[in-house]
């Protein structure tokens, strides 16, 4: 299966077996995206509730909704579809602000410049991870460590 198959589905001239394998693989990747989105939502919800400084708790939306939106955006951004870029656009800025408030509002708070940097890293990691999940190549890069094969 080539990389383009993930975007438009497998070509019809392939055998039923190949097509069903491709379908299963797509389904697995979608389930992975949903599961990881749930993990991101849970992580964010717990993090937002770690805040103890009142000034950092004046959120625009209810806390569970914020966590759900970020988890949902991550799920969308991780789906193996062409339009997953839409979800990816939604991640960086909200994720940065959410984790910045968490890091500044927890006890003890991080210094601002550290919180800024760490929130930026959180935002970058979430964006990069979702991109990798959505567009991950099926073949390893040259020079990467190959997994050991099972003995015959």
């Amino acid at each position, binding site marked *: 299966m080539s990389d383009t198959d993930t975007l438009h589905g497998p070509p019809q001239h392939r055998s039923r077996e190949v097509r069903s394998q491709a379908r299963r693989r797509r389904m697995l990747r979608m389930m992975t995206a949903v*599961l990881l989105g749930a*993990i*991101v939502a*849970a*992580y*964010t*919800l*717990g*993090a*937002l*509730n*770690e805040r103890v400084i009142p000034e950092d708790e004046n959120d625009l939306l209810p*806390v*569970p909704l914020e966590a759900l939106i970020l988890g949902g955006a991550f799920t969308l951004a991780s789906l193996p579809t062409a339009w997953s870029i839409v979800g990816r656009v939604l991640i960086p800025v909200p994720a940065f602000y959410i*984790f910045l408030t*968490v*890091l500044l509002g*927890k*006890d*003890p708070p*991080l*210094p601002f410049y*550290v919180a800024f940097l*760490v929130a930026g*890293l*959180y935002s970058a*990691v979430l964006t990069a991870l979702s991109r*990798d999940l959505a567009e*991950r*190549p099926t073949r*390893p*890069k*040259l*020079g*990467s*460590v*190959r*997994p*050991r*094969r*099972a*003995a015959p």
Partner: protein
Amino acid sequence: MILNGTSRLSVPWRSLWERLARLSVRDNEFSLIVASALISIAIGLAVIVLQVVVQRLHELNFAVPRGERLSTHGTPDWWRVLLVPCVGGALSAGAAVLIRRWRPREIVDAIEANALFGGKMSLRDSLNLALLTIISSGFGASVGLEAAYTQVGSGFASRCGQILKVRRGDLRTLVGCGAAAGIAAAFNAPLAGAFYAFELVIGNYSPAVLAPIAMAALSSTLVVRDLYGGESIFELDAQVHISGMDYALFAALGVLAAVIAIATMTGVTRIERFLRRQALPRWVGPTVGGLVVGLIATIYPQVLGAGHGALQLVLGNGLPWTVLLGLIAAKGLASAVSVGAGFRGGLFSSSLLLGAVFGGATVAALQGALHLAGFAEIELDRLAYMLVGMGAVAAAVVGAPLTMIFLVLELTGSFPAALGVMVGVIIAALVTRHTFGYSFATWRFHVRGVPIRGGFDVGWIEDLSVGKLMRKEAHTLALGSSVAEFRKRYPLTGYKRVFLVDAMGRYAGIVATADAYNPDLDKDLAQPVDALRTGVDQFLLPEQNVRTALRRFGNAETETLAVVSDGKALQVVGFMTEGYALRRYNQELERSRAEEVGEHSLYGPS
């Protein structure tokens, strides 16, 4: 002790003394019990040393006050949280690279040693692994020290057994004793330690191994209690109250615990694959892993280290369910990243914390649902659910249900809690076995391509290879030879079968001597013997084991198969009969069974 004593003796006396020492351990069950107790005392001391070293590293690296645990102590300084795991990752990777140059082969652990190598382990490799685990845990990676305890314990016991030249079965028992002593001393829980050895390291329970393993677990526990204090990983001051409805909910909790356990185990492999895909230098993986753990710990400092302190914190305080939910994600992620990125250590402790947090979040969610449904008067016991979650997730990850039940019983001293845990643990173990089929240890073996599912001895099957069992006097005849030539070279009363080979000497089939002497052939003795051959494409290879050979006999529907050098050259090097293979297989099975039950039969230990 014996070696130290003998080193001062002259050569003949030393030889006699060593022979006596081996004889007494080899032939006497009581000597094996005494040996296991003495070995376990040393292992108890080793566990204390490991714990003290890691505690000092925590005090040094994270400024933890003397005597306090890392994850109980609140949030360490931000720069320590971010920097120390990264440094630990770089150190761990550097040490691993150096060790791999010196000892390039994969380190054999207790389960693998007992399953494949008859209990033979390298003490040097075990100490190397302990060093890597100390670096990992001491610098905040989200891994436990249990791998180091069992590796050092079983490696030391195996070394002692090899010096004493004990039998294969006894060596496997000693490896189990080492692991039992390590876990019992670490958790101050002798029953859990003993059952850890039965379930994981030896692979079964039998009366023959009960006494040495129980003695080992007791000895190391008593040593640690006497020298280091009888501290458990957590202290509970509340009683557990369980009603009838709770048991049904515990079963549901067990199902969800299995899902979490499977997600964590597969998560480790996925992270490993992800890092492999990035084509990073070998030393970068653990450093990046350390950075990720540090990033997680800036929000959830409880993920640092094994998590015993956090376990006490979670069980003692009523953290809000939202924080518990976040902590499940954080701890699962941190543990998977730590192991997947290349830190050494296990998921035993991590799964205990993960399970307790999961139980706490579940009970909070259930309590909320009951309030919403108008059943506010029903109060669920938070502690009971946390203990059940702890046992269930850990049982699914570690693959040792009885160990977890006894661990909870020994740590809490509460029979109602142990009963509740039993329900959750059994369901979690059942679901994991049927849907996933592995514990974390056996999953790692599977990923590495090692075909074992536990500590039970399958090494003897590999040892019983076709190359060892075959008869080497294979008589050959050129393909195309006539019946007359055959009769001239091989009389009827001589060999039962002759192997045909082509001009290149490659195997081309078997001709039974009796077939060549069929009276119907007498009228045309010039005809080629090729028409009488059988098993043209059926042959065995010397490296195949007896089980594969028996399967080949079944498929080929023949009683004799040629053994050829390899699949391409096809040079006949011998042959094997089905009857002999079956006889040897049965003998080994009988010997193995006799060893397990301690029976002194024909093929068992004398």
